[in-house]
């Protein structure tokens, strides 16, 4: 059984004057999928999210949302909700008034109050439902924005940096809501600069750079794009571990004077691909060197992102 895509974009182009924001972008998002959109500032993420929300129309290409072709006028089918550049909320109204007004605009009559209460409860804002949002923190506004999107029972949810400004508990709350929606069949497209969030939430990601897609596919495949990574290695015998690492094929121990000045000078940094790292662990165990900690210095997803978008540190900055 094939599910029709919630989003199907082909060759999407959009320019603002001389600035090319999107240059032949393809995008496929299926129902129930959480799809991450990443890229450096100015890569075209917001423009692409704006197209999905019907805030702008593409100059070229084809876009289908929830099976409906999007034309050349500002319009988007029912079932799409979300926000870009932060949720748009009215500070002189309470949280409940903001949501009630939105529900009314969407034509919800029966059970509107219950739906508003339910949305507020889902994002953990029941206690402040009747407070004017003028005094809300950024995180609370983000959660209220998510509640506004939930209220419309979307089949496609578009979120721009939904975890922005959230504390760990709030982030956990939001993640739970998003995964719950996806489990119920809602397609979610979200942008984030937090690669750890994407790793937790997304099954697929699209990486944009200067308006073009430089990667699109499963998160696991993106991680594999990272190639060689630096790993922090903490052992019971640093000197022995260094010798073993230098003897391990495919592994290097980059000289790092800057690193040696760190308080954790006992930490060894090794560079290599995943198989070489696995080989190192085996060799350390054989040499009776206990491994206390082994972790990538930069997360694989982040490393892949930096490599793909050309925004990674230079060799000089790297110190190697």
């Amino acid at each position, binding site marked *: 059984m094939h599910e029709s895509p919630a989003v199907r974009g082909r060759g999407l182009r959009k320019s603002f004057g001389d600035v090319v924001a999107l240059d032949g972008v393809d995008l496929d998002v299926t129902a129930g999928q959480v799809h991450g959109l990443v890229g450096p500032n100015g890569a075209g993420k917001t423009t692409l999210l704006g197209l999905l929300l019907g805030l702008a129309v593409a100059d070229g290409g084809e876009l289908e949302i929830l099976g409906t072709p999007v034309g050349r006028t500002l319009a988007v089918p029912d079932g799409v909700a979300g926000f870009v550049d932060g949720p748009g909320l009215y500070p002189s109204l309470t949280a409940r008034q903001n949501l009630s007004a939105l529900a009314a*605009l969407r034509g919800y009559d029966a059970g509107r109050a219950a739906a508003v209460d339910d949305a507020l409860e889902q994002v953990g804002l029941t206690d402040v439902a009747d407070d004017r949002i003028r005094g809300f923190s950024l995180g609370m506004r983000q959660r209220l924005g998510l509640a506004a999107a939930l209220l419309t029972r979307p089949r496609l949810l578009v979120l721009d940096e939904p975890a922005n400004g959230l504390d760990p508990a709030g982030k956990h709350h939001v993640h739970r809501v998003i995964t719950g929606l996806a489990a119920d069949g809602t397609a979610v497209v979200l942008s984030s600069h937090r690669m750890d969030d994407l790793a937790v939430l997304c099954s697929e990601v699209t990486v944009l750079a200067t308006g073009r897609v430089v990667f699109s596919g499963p998160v696991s495949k993106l991680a594999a794009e990272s190639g060689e990574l630096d790993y922090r290695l903490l052992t019971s015998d640093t000197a022995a571990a260094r010798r073993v690492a230098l003897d391990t094929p495919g592994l290097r121990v980059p000289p790092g004077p800057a690193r040696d000045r760190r308080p954790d000078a006992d930490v060894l940094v090794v560079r290599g691909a995943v198989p070489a790292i696995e080989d190192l662990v085996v060799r350390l165990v054989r040499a009776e060197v206990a491994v206390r900690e082994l972790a990538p210095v930069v997360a694989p997803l982040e490393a892949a992102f930096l490599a793909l978008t050309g925004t990674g540190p230079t060799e000089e900055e790297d110190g190697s």
Partner: protein
Amino acid sequence: MTETITPPPVEARPAPVLRGYRFELVKLLSQWRIRVLLLACWLAPAGFVAAVSLQSALPADTVFGRWMHATGWAGSLVVLDFSRSWALPLLTALVAGDVFAAEDRLGTWRHLLVAVRSPRRIFVTKALAGLTVLLLLVAGLAGSSIAGGLAAVGDRPLVGLDGHLLAPGDAAGTVLLAWACVLAPTLAFAAIGLLGSVALGRSTMGLLLPALLAFTLQLAQLLPLPVAVRLALPSHAFLAWRGLFTGPAQTGPLLIGLVVSLTWAVVATASAYHLFLRRDFTDLTYEGSGRRLLVAGALPLTALVVLTFAVVTGTTSAGGSGIERTKVEGSLATAYAHLYRMQTRELHRPDVTEAQLRATAACDKGGSRVSDEGPGNDWRCVVSWHLPGATAVGTAIYQLDVTADGRYVADGDGPKEVNGFFQVRTPTGDAPNPLWQFDGNVDLLSRVSKD
């Protein structure tokens, strides 16, 4: 076998206009600034009129100000005259000038577009909500000032701008009609506010545009402009309501003023709508465009002024300043006759009619070297009248200060027992001699055959 699940294509359903309108109204009314304005408009005029009506010194420089002791209806007209100068342009700036810019300031355009799904409906609902609040504010000014006047002075006859008495019922109707008439130019400036708000985004200029334009036009109205130019400006209807208080009413300038104002309202709103539908809402830093305002707003409105000027010139007798010697003489003689009857009653003398008085006036402006036309404070008139049974002809001299909009103040210059300052007994207490100083209004469009 594979199965393709295709969700039914669902058309985008814009939010119903009524719900959008209600939401816009809630947003406006939740702003403290709007609440303060509403409170001020519904309370302050009543307090002002009641307080001033009980003072010994009246605002005689404002039209109808000198009659605030005599009737409760005069206070509302004083507030109306003050409002058309200051309050209404500021109110249109604060309400209509901000109704779109507020979304720019809050960064809520995208949210609103996603929720409403129709820029057209957003425009319509915002314009309607702004209009509703403006109407509430104007209704407050009118209702409050009338209530304050009636409570402080009472429901008494009102002296019109040609000296004739309007019975309380007629005064009520005419005062309400006058307030209704200023709604037209208010709408015109509100539309300018919408245009500025749409074209200039969060820029302060967008907010100030209607007020700046109103004050600029107000200054222009002080100049001796040709009457056809004066009538082509949207602010003329802010003054033309005065013509309702003469008998017969000076309907020509008023009707032209109303049509011009409403046309401005339509053109400016259409320009704002045109700009709004072409706006890029993905640009969060939108600061508006002066060039767009010029092309889509200023040029059509300037063309409208030129067109109106041509139409007024071609279809009416409008010429020069509209203030001519024969018109001034006719207006002054009529007002004098009406006020003479009033003075006669207040001095408990035998009544005479205006027809019996056969009052005439002979005016001169600035001596023999100056043409007898146009505004100025150098008009000097001699009024003559007849009393039944007397062969002698009475005469009285007046100095007139005629302003470019046709309003004049006649100041008695003797003989002092006729038009000097002395107190007369009126139903509301002692009051200055009605022939001492009075207001009048020249019909800028009327045809009067020259001698």
